[in-house]
């Protein structure tokens, strides 16, 4: 794998179009190897034709995002889960 990549910080703008919370601070678990880490630490290739984020441990694709003029395609099949930090609520 070449070193011509960015990291998950580069997803903050494109994902910020979609989500109310900052997904780059979420902890993702890779479906390939089970490694867990922040989305900001994924290795990101792109931006054309789309953004492809790979696991820094096993290099499997964790997330893909393609933006068309009228839609955003988000493929998360490489992520077992995303743990998204939320402000604490008291009941």
């Amino acid at each position: 794998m070449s070193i011509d990549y960015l990291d998950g910080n580069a997803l903050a703008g494109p994902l910020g179009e979609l989500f109310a919370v900052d997904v780059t601070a979420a902890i993702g678990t890779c479906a390939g190897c089970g490694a867990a880490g922040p989305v900001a630490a994924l290795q990101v290739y792109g931006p054309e034709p789309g953004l492809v984020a790979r696991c820094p441990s096993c290099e499997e694709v964790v997330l893909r995002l393609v933006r068309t003029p009228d839609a955003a395609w988000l493929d998360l099949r490489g992520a077992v889960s995303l743990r998204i930090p939320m402000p604490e609520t008291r009941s």
Partner: protein
Amino acid sequence: MPRLPWRVAKLVEIRQETATARTLVFQIPGWPGHLAGQHVDVRLTAPDGYSTERSYSVAAPEQGDRVELTVELVPDGEVSPYLLEILEVGDEVEIRGPVGGWFVWRPDHTTPVLLVAGGSGVVPLMAMIRARRAAGSSAPFRLIYSVREPDQRFYLDELANPDPGLDIAYLFTRKTPDGWARPPGRITQADLTGASTDIDSYVCGPTGFVEAAADHLIALGHAPDRIRTERFGPTGG
């Protein structure tokens, strides 16, 4: 209004940092504020409708509707030559943000901090140094700043008189000032020793630099989850 709207940003001030880098200060009505370390997307649109965008780190903490970016010229780039050579005070571009909630430093953090910058990777780290000053924070800060040559350092005058509790070390990879003890060369493990491992680290620069620096820190016993990284790609500009 979309969740992350493009806002009109008017250039109000230009400061030369080096022969190839300038700080651009924009005024952005409705700016929601930001944290040190966050970045913005800048969009340029040609008269024929073609548009292109790049991400830039913000160089200074929140200051009303003023947003400062420091942009290094990428000679074959598409956006930076326009921002640095064509755009004049009073001209407008579009900016959206702030984005990124991972590579940030919050002024209420009191933990000691190690900042490791490669080239223009110093920009978001400078925002943290300035945010620390603005907040009157006494969190110990150490900046290790690697550049090719002495005259490529950004913010030289401001960093010449560091704030109390801010320690600065320069590394030169090609050419050093006269009489400089460390020979020119890339960052090594020895450049990062001496600090306690009970610190939060922020590493920003080109991908190869970030990989090397983060690997050295891990080898020195720093916990990977306390090392935050942000990489610049080799292309773009």
